[in-house]
């Protein structure tokens, strides 16, 4: 508990707010204490004094009033006794009531023994006067006015009045003395009060100043620290802003790049599509080529067969030519023998002379025919030779044709297989292209997503930039505030 209270006042602990609170609390408590002191030592007693003074004045006045009531009562009684005016009696009763009320009031207010005794004596005198006057009034009402004179001649009343005056004077003197004492006390108290107030104000001022200085030092320290921190924050913010700018640029660039990439991918997708189409066409073409090669191949076969047939015919031809050649030679040999026989026939015809002349002329013609047959045989021979040559050449050509056909077939086969390879390759290309196109599409999608992400990144970056700008403005204001705080 005590610890708790002490911790409330231990100045080193707690936040600045708590410290300020404590700092204010201490002078506040001091002021409260002082106020309490001022009230209890100063104001209340002074009030009490004032009250006392008022009371004393009041008491003096009331005692005077009381005495006056007694005298008035007496006067009313005398008035009645002399004038027999019943209104005087009414007045008498009023003064009597007033006297009683005054005496009761005073009795309850005055407690000091000495004064109380004086008061009691004054009241007793009043009672006596009352008693006496009522007796006199009674005598008058009983029709015994002479009794009044008789009683009054004994001067019972006069002594009472004198005594009363003396008592009132005494009371008043005592009260005046009391009043002076009260006033002196009051002056002293007021002096004390002044000292107390100024003193306490000074103490409070010192305390408040010291506490204020302490707090202000703390605030300065803290402000400086805050200022530094703020500056650091500012620079950090600036840096961050910068990097954010860079980031934004990068993002922009990236976005652009991605856009380009997007375009490229779109392009490549299209191209891949085109390529696919082309590949497809090429595939078709290559298939056509392959068919053509097949046809060529088929034709080649036909050609080869034709060439072989040619070769075979050529050989037949060659053999036939040889046979021709042999026939021609046989003809030539026959022509030659015919010619020798026709010469022998012409030599015998000549010998036969004119009966061998018409046979010498037929044997010349036979010889001539024989010569021409020899010549045609020769020519056929040459022709057969030529044909032989041609056939040889043809065979040779056929052979080469055959060779070239087979080579062609071979190459056609090669071509065909090449075409098949091409076709396969194209097919592969087509497939690949299709894959490429699909991939490109996916890529495009991904790129769009990336682009969107980039856009949002861009937006966020912009917002970030805005926030940082705001933050920087705030920090700026904070700095200004801190400058004000110093």
């Amino acid at each position, binding site marked *: 508990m005590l610890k708790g209270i002490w911790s409330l006042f231990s100045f080193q602990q707690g936040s600045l707010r708590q410290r300020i609170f404590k700092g204010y609390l201490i002078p506040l408590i001091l002021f409260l204490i002082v106020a309490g002191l001022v009230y209890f030592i100063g104001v209340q007693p002074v009030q009490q004094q004032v*009250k006392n003074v008022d009371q004393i004045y009041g008491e003096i*006045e*009331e005692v*005077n*009033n009381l005495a006056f009531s007694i005298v008035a009562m007496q006067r009313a009684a005398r008035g009645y006794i002399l004038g027999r005016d019943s209104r005087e009696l009414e007045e008498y009763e*009023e003064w*009597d*009531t007033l006297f009683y009320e005054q005496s*009761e009031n005073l009795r309850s207010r005055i407690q000091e023994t000495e004064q109380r005794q004086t008061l009691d004596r004054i009241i007793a005198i009043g009672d006596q006067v009352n008693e006496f006057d009522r007796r006199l009034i009674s005598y008058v009402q009983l029709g015994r006015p002479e009794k009044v004179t008789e009683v009054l001649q004994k001067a019972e009343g006069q002594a009472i009045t004198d005594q009363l005056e003396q008592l009132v004077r005494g009371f008043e003197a005592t009260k005046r003395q009391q009043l002076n004492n009260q006033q002196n006390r009051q002056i002293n108290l007021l002096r004390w009060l002044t000292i107390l107030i100024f003193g306490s104000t000074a103490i409070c001022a010192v305390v408040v100043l010291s506490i204020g200085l302490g707090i202000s030092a703390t605030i300065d320290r803290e402000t400086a620290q805050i200022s530094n921190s703020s500056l650091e924050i500012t620079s950090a913010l600036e840096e961050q802003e910068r990097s954010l700018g860079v980031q934004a640029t990068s993002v922009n660039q990236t976005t652009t790049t991605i856009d380009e990439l997007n375009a490229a991918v779109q392009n490549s997708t299209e191209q891949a599509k085109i390529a696919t189409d082309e590949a497809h066409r090429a595939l078709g073409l290559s298939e056509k080529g392959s068919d053509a090669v097949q046809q060529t191949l088929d034709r080649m076969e036909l050609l080869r067969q034709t060439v072989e047939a040619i070769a075979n015919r050529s050989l037949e031809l060659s053999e036939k030519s040889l046979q021709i050649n042999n026939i021609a030679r046989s003809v030539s040999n026959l022509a030659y023998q015919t010619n020798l026989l026709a010469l022998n026939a012409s030599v015998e015809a000549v010998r036969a002379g004119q009966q061998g002349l018409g046979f010498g002329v037929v044997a010349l013609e036979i010889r001539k025919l024989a010569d021409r047959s020899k010549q045609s045989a020769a020519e056929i021979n040459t022709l057969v030779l030529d044909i032989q040559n041609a056939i040889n050449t043809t065979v040779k050509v056929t052979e080469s044709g055959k060779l070239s056909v087979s080579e062609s077939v071979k190459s056609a086969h090669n071509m065909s297989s090449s075409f098949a390879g091409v076709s396969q390759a194209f097919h592969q290309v087509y497939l690949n292209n299709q894959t490429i196109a699909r991939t490109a599409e996916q890529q495009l999608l991904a790129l769009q997503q990336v682009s969107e992400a980039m856009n949002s990144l861009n937006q966020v970056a912009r917002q970030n930039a805005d926030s940082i700008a705001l933050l920087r403005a705030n920090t700026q204001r904070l700095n200004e505030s801190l400058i004000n705080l110093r």
Partner: protein
Amino acid sequence: MKTTNKSSKSVDKIPQICYKCGRFHDGNSDSGDLSVNLSYAVTKGLNHPRMLSKHSIRRRQFLLGLAGTSALGILSNCAASPDPNSQGNLSGVILEKTQLRIGFLPIACATPILICESLNLYEKYGLDVELVKMNNWEQIRESAISGELDAYHMLSPMPIAISLGLESRRFPIRLASIENINGSAITVAIKHREKVKTAEDLKGFRIAIPFTHSMHNLLLRYYLANSKVHPDRDVELVVTPPPNMVNRLRSGEIDAMVAPEPFNQMAVNQGLGFIHILTRDLWPGHPCCSFTTSQEWIERHPNTFRAINKAIIEGSYYASQSQNRIDVARRLAQLQYLDAPEDTLRQVMTGQFVNRLGESLNIPDRIDFDPYPWKSFSYWITSQFERWGYVPMGSLNHEAIAADIFLTGLARQMAKQLGQQPPTITLRFESLKFDTFDPSEPENYARQQIEKLGF
């Protein structure tokens, strides 16, 4: 007719206790009565140059805003705006003592003291009163002198006798108010019914009196003497505690008794005696008992004394109202009070009774209640003290004794505060059966009686 502190106007009306301001008010007027009176006084005070001081007091009190210790302020407050919780006593006045013990004898004379308890009037004035029932007057006297209790019910001559030191140590007792007026009678044993017609017929009787210093004794003496019967020689007076009187009458120990009520009516109702004469017929409105306390006690407890005094005067006023008498009888019949038959008490209180002489009587003031202590009462009593040799003839200053012992002024102030109109004067001619008492010449009365009667 009795001379009371009530105006004839208020008698006709039905007074009621106003529980708001603790006063009795007339039935057809409200609490404005007093305020009218007061405001009249204040208005008059404003206009009357000699009343200026009163006004200045009020103004001063108002200006200072002092705690209302002023009786004036409180009085006017109570009158102007009755506070339902207001105490009957002067609020702001500190009672020196609140737990009081009051000694009383169980007789109808004690009615105001008893009715105050029954009506909670003591509480109203901030008092816690214990009533102590006593057996006889000597016991009360000794108790008072020893200071055992706070206040006492006494016979009216007792405070004078005790203050003068007659038959006892001299001890100043003060009479605060008269408990009752009238309310006693000379009752003669039934066996003397035929014989006793006048006072002279009482000759040779053994007559019980409650106490030497009692109105009963003094009135009996007055009655006998005026009939030429010497009370010391021709009859035998025996002091008998009132509660024993009926029994003594029954046993024949006494021939007659001068008894307080309800013993006369009780003797009549029991067939033991008949009422020869009411003391009311000897001295209409004579004092009987009183409410007293010692001077010393008053000095020590001035505020308490005023409170109790006021309560008793208020109770007295309640009992004085004829319409309350049946209620008073009912209340007093209770064990802790008179412990007497209610019908007997009703006969006493209403004054409608049979006296065993064949007469049905209606005497509303057979017993009555008027607290005002007339000084002439005291004068008469002290004159009779001289007359019968209790003190030497001419030795008493009747005026001074009355001034000291009868606190008429205070009783008047209490009555005034209760809104009553007590008399201004303190002396009156007392009209007795055989003469008139002139209070202006009290010293001559006894001498004249002796001269007239020869003893």
